[in-house]
């Protein structure tokens, strides 16, 4: 057993690599899945889209959508990012017909990406029954070809990986989050692209984060992203550090924030992203998921799934998700690998958990041991093995209204 070393000193994970293969896309990216995406463009088309997709659950048909009727540049962009995501091989768009979403623009963008796409408009396709029949026929005509699509060799350096936590507990910052940070270091060293987020939970970490920035301009941008989150959440009236934290041994706000920040590991930070912006080069990135401008739509992200959606829009092939209380979520387009902070919840929910980080709290494994297991789980998922949430059919997806300004200067590596 290895010692609980904090940060890996060598470039490659120890164990033998699993053979990974990916689906080549016209833009040069490679997918680790070849999903057929059914996407509704307003809530009024949700039921029809679900009816179309539901017989093929388990066959790689995934359901996403945007519920709003009013136009949103943000939602338009995210839907385009998702419909042209490397894990997607073909797209069926389901429109009611009178919503404001620019469905033709989306269809053209998907077609331009080299993917098969169909636009089904319920009002002109025979209503619910006619649309479901037409939609299922379109899906069935494509499933066999998608399953037999050619693949090419895939390396860790082809992968974009997001890290996220939800339902954390007092051990998250001691066990599974540092282990994800260790895995992040291994992945970055192997040439992968990794992103972390939760600027609202990084208050107090900004100076440490700024010191990891590759340029002074980026250091300023990282600090600004955290300050923006701080003021946004302060205006919403959300608290920061409290008696519950102290009871569990956390002495300061910055120590509480370190629990989430631990997932970012120790490597230099190469840039700041906003949802839909793809990292231009491998390395480690902070994703800023807080709205720009005044507080407008309430809480920036209403749940963990919305944040995951945004990381997937920025190109994440898969998500490393840590939990203490025991989240069960997956995601529609990106496999989710779930790690839990304690063995008690792992025993209770083993069917949902890919990784038990509780062995660190049990004193029998180190951070490095669990981190190496996480990298192996990444390799297995990228090689096509379903994660626990995938095998259980999880397809969580949330997209709602937000606003972002373009990235400022110095946010991305040149």
């Amino acid at each position, binding site marked *: 057993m290895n010692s609980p070393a904090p*940060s890996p000193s060598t470039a490659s994970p120890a164990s033998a690599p699993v053979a990974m293969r990916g689906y080549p896309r016209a833009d040069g990216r490679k997918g680790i899945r070849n999903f057929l995406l059914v996407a509704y463009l307003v809530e009024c088309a949700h039921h029809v889209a679900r009816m179309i997709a539901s017989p093929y659950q388990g066959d790689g048909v995934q359901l996403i959508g945007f519920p709003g009727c009013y136009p949103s540049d943000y939602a338009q962009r995210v839907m385009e990012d998702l419909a042209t995501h490397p894990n997607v091989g073909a797209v069926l768009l389901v429109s009611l017909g009178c919503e404001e979403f620019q469905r033709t623009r989306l269809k053209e963008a998907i077609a331009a990406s080299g993917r098969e796409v169909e636009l089904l408009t319920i009002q002109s396709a025979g209503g619910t029954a006619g649309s479901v029949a037409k939609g299922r026929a379109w899906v069935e005509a494509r499933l066999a070809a998608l399953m037999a699509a050619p693949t090419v060799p895939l390396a860790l350096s082809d992968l974009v990986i997001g890290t996220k936590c939800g339902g954390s507990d007092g051990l998250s910052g001691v066990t599974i989050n540092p282990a994800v940070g260790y895995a992040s270091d291994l992945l970055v060293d192997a040439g992968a692209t990794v992103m972390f987020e939760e600027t609202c939970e990084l208050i107090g970490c900004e100076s440490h984060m700024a010191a990891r920035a590759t340029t002074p301009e980026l250091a300023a941008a990282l600090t600004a992203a955290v300050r923006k989150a701080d003021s946004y959440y302060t205006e919403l009236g959300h608290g920061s550090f*409290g008696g519950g934290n102290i009871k569990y041994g956390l002495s*300061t706000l910055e120590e509480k924030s370190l629990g989430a920040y631990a997932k970012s590991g120790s490597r230099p930070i190469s840039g700041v992203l906003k949802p839909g912006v793809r990292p231009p080069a491998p390395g480690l990135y902070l994703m800023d998921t807080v709205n720009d401008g005044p507080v407008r739509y309430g809480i920036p992200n209403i749940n963990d799934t919305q944040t995951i959606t945004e990381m997937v829009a920025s190109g994440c092939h898969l998500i490393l998700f840590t939990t203490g209380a025991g989240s069960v979520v997956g995601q529609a387009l990106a496999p989710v690998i779930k790690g839990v902070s304690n063995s008690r919840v792992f025993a209770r929910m083993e069917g949902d958990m890919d990784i038990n980080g509780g062995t660190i*709290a049990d004193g029998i*494994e180190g951070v490095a041991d669990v981190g190496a297991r996480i990298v192996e789980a990444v390799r297995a998922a990228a090689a096509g093995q379903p994660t626990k949430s995938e095998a259980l059919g999880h397809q969580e997806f949330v997209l709602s209204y937000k606003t972002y300004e373009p990235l400022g200067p110095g946010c991305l590596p040149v």
Partner: protein
Amino acid sequence: MGEAGAANMIRLAAGDNVGIALVDIASGGTAATLDGFALTALEAIPQGHKIALLPIPQGADIVRLRMAVGIARADIPAGRLVHVHNVASRYLNNDQDHYE
């Protein structure tokens, strides 16, 4: 608590001056990491709480997982509990209204 021979404390990164108790450690008990670092707890260290791994002078950073998470408000001998009574935040005054 834990398995025989299991660690009851973790040092999250090599340069840290605090360890984290993985289980409740009694006053006078031994706090030991998986890689063999051990010291005597000079007072009870509850699970999840910090123990000074070496003497931390007043004004020095409390370093956990490579990051300064606070400043020592007094000299803290090795083996002592490190918590709100002897740590100050750089960001919030612990005595003020950010407590729930």
